[in-house]
């Protein structure tokens, strides 16, 4: 099994990244702020505007380090890609399956089953762990309805019905999402999902977590040689990494949402770490972003047992393992794509 390596976050806005030998060097006004050997890194996330030297981009591409550029608010801009990884036969098979609505649905269905199952478990877990503090009846009711959707998903064979069922399940889930927040209720509340821009603290956190997750998923897909832009559930649209969004579905709940909730409930993130803009948008400030990123890294190192492989591995490798399983299915080594079922 592959090793989970470290991620370097560059938050200093006027820093410039260069290559020196085998090191990535962070320069601030031509002064060396820090240097890190590339072989200890898996990804570099750069939240600045000056950029990186072409030599570093080349080195990252050839060593499999994903170098991503984001705006200082965490919006994804670009990624430095080197030569395509993996083999062309796998990608062609991916395109072929993606062209056929029937075959796409076979895979898409499993992403959605994974998502609904995992989201349902989040609700069930909350009723078990915090029975005294949450509205158990309401959570149980919605969870039951999600279970019903789950049974309708299994025989589903066209994408539109699938999307409909997914939307229904998401409604039931987000309907009680606010119940899961137990601390600082006056600052952290959830009414509905708002994005572009997020309009409250919880939505700002969710959006940021989804960006980080998308970045990890895209890197995982590219590293096993799949094309992250050709999806099955999400159809092709220029500039949209559809397969990344597909793969993310099963992780949104267990990985990103639970991460956000535990940040709030453990008081790792505080109301003063947010900023409100004139247009009503809410963003994390520097301090908030640092808190979220450190917690994200810590979460990635926590170990779980993978339900399908029955093997202990760090959370951070789960998207990679799922990408690998997906490529096995596309190649025909597996009869179906096994989604990640969280318990």
């Amino acid at each position, binding site marked *: 099994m592959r090793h989970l390596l470290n991620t370097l976050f560059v*938050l200093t806005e006027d820093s410039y990244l260069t290559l020196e*030998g085998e090191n990535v060097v962070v320069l601030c006004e031509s002064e060396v702020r*820090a*240097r890190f050997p590339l072989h200890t890194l898996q990804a570099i996330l750069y939240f600045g505007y000056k950029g990186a030297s072409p030599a570093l981009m080349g080195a990252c591409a050839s060593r499999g380090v994903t170098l991503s550029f984001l705006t200082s608010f965490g919006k994804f801009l670009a990624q430095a890609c080197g030569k395509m990884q993996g083999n062309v036969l796998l990608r062609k098979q991916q395109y072929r399956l993606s062209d056929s609505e029937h075959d796409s649905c076979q895979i898409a269905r499993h992403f959605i089953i994974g998502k609904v199952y995992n989201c349902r478990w989040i609700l069930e877990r909350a009723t078990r762990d915090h029975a005294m503090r949450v509205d158990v009846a309401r959570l149980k009711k919605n969870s039951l309805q999600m279970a019903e959707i789950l049974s309708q998903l299994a025989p589903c064979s066209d994408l539109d019905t699938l999307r409909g069922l997914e939307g229904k399940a998401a409604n039931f889930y987000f309907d009680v999402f606010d119940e899961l927040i137990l601390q600082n209720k006056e600052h952290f509340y959830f009414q509905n999902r708002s994005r572009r821009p997020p309009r409250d603290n919880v939505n700002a956190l969710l959006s940021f977590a989804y960006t980080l997750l998308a970045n990890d998923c895209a890197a995982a897909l590219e590293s096993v040689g799949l094309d992250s832009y050709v999806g099955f559930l999400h159809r092709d649209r220029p500039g949209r990494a559809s397969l990344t969004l597909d793969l993310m579905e099963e992780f949104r709940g267990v990985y990103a949402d639970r991460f956000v909730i535990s940040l709030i409930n453990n008081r790792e993130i505080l109301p003063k770490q947010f900023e409100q803009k004139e247009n009503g948008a809410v963003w994390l400030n520097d301090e908030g972003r640092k808190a979220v990123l450190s917690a994200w890294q810590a979460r990635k190192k926590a170990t779980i047992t993978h339900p399908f492989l029955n093997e202990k591995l760090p959370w951070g490798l789960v998207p990679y393992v799922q990408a690998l399983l997906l490529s096995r299915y596309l190649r025909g080594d597996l009869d179906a794509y096994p989604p990640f079922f969280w318990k």
Partner: protein
Amino acid sequence: MLVLITYDVNTQDAAGRKRLRQVAKQCVNYGQRVQNSVFECIVDAAQCKIVQHELEAIINKEKDSLRFYYLGNNYHTKVEHIGVKTSYDAEGVLIV
């Protein structure tokens, strides 16, 4: 695992000073410089052999010496730092 690499290169002549620069340059590729001729490197067993081999090719065994200390995976309790020039935790959160 964490490997501590230390070296002593004889710098009495120009060739020695050249070797010193080369050894330092090679070490910095693999780890962080914690003191003047002391490097802490996070490497796996294979990478460790590679760096050993590369360094061995540079030094003059008559005049210089190299030492490798293997501190394993649970090295956090084995290292204590006092004084200036603090280092970073290569497996911790890296935020610049």
